[in-house]
């Protein structure tokens, strides 16, 4: 066989790689185009609407920070789903894991009020990750040892987690009732709402960091931009490294592709499933932790419904790649951030963004059926009987 030149190899690689990015981009573009029909039917110029959407998402430092704040939990849930899907553990339970993560982080943040920040922040993050991981470990264990379908178990455990949260948020924090130690509700409030976590448990903001460096800034946006955004970026890189550069990831991907072949190659399949469940659950738990420690600083009833489920489309549009999840979370975050401005300025209803979002998912899934096969060089037709081995497959 003729070795292809370096340039050919490079250009083909480039084509294959960019093709992977092109599918979701084309899907998003198509979603905007199709949705514009709806906007026209409302009597609104779609360009006006999309312009407002774009400006609401990226048009000012404030808009930009809003986008970043919105996308941060989505990055974590998207990564949770990506890692799980890659490894054959279809984690539909990010929502529940996120709720429990937020719950534990809040509990730590309102309980250990005297701890210094350098201790409290890592402990809280760890607590959030740990509870998500352990919650995912239950369906992981059931799948690894009993063959339970994790799609069902993780999905159903969402409701257990959310109802548990709703129960806890209605118990006074260290109140006199039997489960007072568990309670999250701020006793001074009439509503199911926790107290604000102590400042030491809140993630440092960009403004805060700059102030510490002696730079005073007056941009209010920087007060909302926290370490969470950076941690999301770091998490995406770490997940990428684990998946593609470590033996853990190799095992996980092998099990995800073909558990039978993986077992034959000596991979301990049940243990790999458990590891995957832990990592996926921890990421989802961290999504809740970021939201509480970075943005909301407290939890209320129904505080972040859907962010866990949204991890699934984020992962799918991200082509089940950790860095793809980052970009796709940007798309989702921008839609959410710009929606209000779109409605106010153009009159196109906020619901349009859900149409765009759904269409993008549909088109992205349709796009996965388009496959780019590298062109294979076939042996010359008249290689004759002298060439004993001519494999055409």
């Amino acid at each position, binding site marked *: 066989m003729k070795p292809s030149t370096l340039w050919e190899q490079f250009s083909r690689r480039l084509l294959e790689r960019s093709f992977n990015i092109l599918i979701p981009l084309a899907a998003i573009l198509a979603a905007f185009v199709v949705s514009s029909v709806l906007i026209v039917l409302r009597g609104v110029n779609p360009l006006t609407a999309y312009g407002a959407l774009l400006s609401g998402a990226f048009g000012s430092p404030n808009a930009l920070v809003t986008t970043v704040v919105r996308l941060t939990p989505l990055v974590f849930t998207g990564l949770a789903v990506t890692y799980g899907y890659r490894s054959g553990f279809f984690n539909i339970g990010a929502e529940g894991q996120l709720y429990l993560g937020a719950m534990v982080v809040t509990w730590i943040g309102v309980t250990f009020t005297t701890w210094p920040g350098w201790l409290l922040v890592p402990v809280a993050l760890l607590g959030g990750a740990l509870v998500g991981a352990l919650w995912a470990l239950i369906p992981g264990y059931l799948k690894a040892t009993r063959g339970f379908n994790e799609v069902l178990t993780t999905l159903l455990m969402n409701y257990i987690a959310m109802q548990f949260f709703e129960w806890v948020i209605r118990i006074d924090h260290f109140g006199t009732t039997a489960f007072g130690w568990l309670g999250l509700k701020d006793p001074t409030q009439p509503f199911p709402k926790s107290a604000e976590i102590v400042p030491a448990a809140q993630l440092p903001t960009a403004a805060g960091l700059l102030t510490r460096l002696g730079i005073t800034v007056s941009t209010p946006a920087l007060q909302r931009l926290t370490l969470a955004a950076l941690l999301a970026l770091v998490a995406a890189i770490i997940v990428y490294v684990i998946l593609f*550069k470590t033996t853990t990831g190799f095992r996980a991907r092998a099990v995800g592709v073909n558990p039978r072949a993986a077992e034959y190659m000596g991979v301990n399949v049940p243990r790999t499933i458990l590891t995957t469940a832990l990592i996926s659950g921890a990421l989802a738990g961290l999504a809740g932790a970021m939201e509480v420690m970075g943005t909301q600083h407290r939890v209320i009833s129904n505080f972040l419904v859907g962010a866990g489920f949204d991890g699934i489309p984020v992962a799918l549009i991200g082509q089940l790649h950790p860095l793809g999840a980052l970009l796709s979370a940007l798309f989702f975050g921008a839609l959410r951030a710009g929606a209000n401005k779109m409605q106010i300025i153009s009159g196109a209803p906020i619901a349009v963004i859900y149409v765009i979002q759904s269409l993008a998912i549909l088109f992205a899934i349709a796009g996965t059926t388009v496959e780019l096969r590298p062109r294979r060089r*076939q042996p010359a037709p008249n290689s004759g009987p002298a060439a004993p*081995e001519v494999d*055409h497959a």
Partner: protein
Amino acid sequence: MTELLRLEKIRKTFPGVLANDDVDLEIRKGEIHALLGENGAGKTTLMNCVYGVYRPERGHILWKGQPVEIHQARDAIALGIGMVHQHFMLVPPLTVAENVILGLPSAREPLLDLRSAAIRLRDLGKQYGLPVDPGIPVWQLPVGVQQRVEILKALYRNAELLILDEPTAVLTPGEVEDLFKVLKGLTQEGLSIIFITHKLEEVMAVSDRVTVMRNGRVVQTVNAAATNANELAKMMVGREVFLNIPKPALPAGEVVLAVTGLAAQSDRGLPALKGLSFEIRRGEILGIAGVDGNGQTELAEALTGLRPATGGTVAVSGHDVTHASPREIMDLNVAFIPPDRQHTGLLLTFSVGENLIGKEFCRPPFSKRGFLQERLIRDFVTGAIQNYDIRTPEAATPAKLLSGGNQQKVVLARELSRRPDLLIAAQPTRGLDIGATEYVRQQMVAARNAGTAILLISTELEEVLSLSDRIAVLYEGEIMGIVPASGADVHEIGLMMAGAKRLTSAAPAVEEAA
């Protein structure tokens, strides 16, 4: 005999491949005509041109002396050509009669006319010796009877020429005999049959004339009575092929694999292995002969930790591994070529390189503190691709894009580059063309000569005979006997494979060990 079908200068290409190159073929009325050739020789492509699945780019098809155009299967059926594909085209939940009339207009349109169809099917069955109950759903029928339904389907459509694509691949030896009887009966009724195969014995057993194809061309058409299997093999491959690779005699080494009373169950929970005992020494190949489905898969899986043993013991180099995990067995330097490279042997969406390190990735030097050492891996992969002549565009190409032979080379490279003490090779050449087969066999003999103990499980008796030092015959999960390969009586092995004979001393013959 009069001519029924004539193909003149048929040419068919696929992108980059010349599948049929000016092929001439003549089929006479009332003959069984074998179309013999290796995988990829162009047999099936040619027949698909006749049946209207493909359109030849050049050449003519003459039916009873008249030039005809066959654009689709419907045209072929209208002419009186029927084809039974290797993979049956039946709808399992439908009954035999429903399957047969599927696609035909009913005599009582728009109503179905199952009753007259059933009557006609019974008559046809009687006439040709193909009894089938028309009212039974197809999924309830054994494979051999399903094939009968396919043949009846063609006969019901008044076929005069029946094309059978590798019809024996799915049949047991008994069913093969029945089929051959039916085919001979059909020719007596005036039908012609084209019989696609790559098995020489079948050609000799059933056909009147043989056309041998190689690399898309016809080598020769000969009368079966005027030739023999050796001559046909030579024509088929184009050179003297001896898959018999010379093996130097080696002094008996120490026992590497010792199996005593091994029992295991099939996937359905039935006993599949019923107390097997044998041992293999360093530098020895023990071949397991037997008809497919007599416990071969279960044996390979039980020995490699993929299937729990329900009784007996397995010891590798003195370590008891009866209940060990695949990884623990692997760590005793045991290699395994699984019977299905597509589902077990390879991670098809993983790259060639990733597959090559599929077993060693978690060990130094390929991994260090849990991280993959990409440069060392790349060096190893490049070397393995060269050493084992794996034809792949690059190491990063997904394994699924390789041809079967090259996929098997990836498996072989991964398993043999570890210089194993014990190799369990299950169907190592299944589905490979002759060149790749030869290569795999050479590599296995080389490993044996280097001291590897090899358990060769193969349903190709010829392969077992040519590679093994000793041969054990497996029948319904039991070993019927173990004989030395040199001077083995093929007839006797055949009887053991059919369960008709059992050697009294079923214990391994190890006198020569001394």
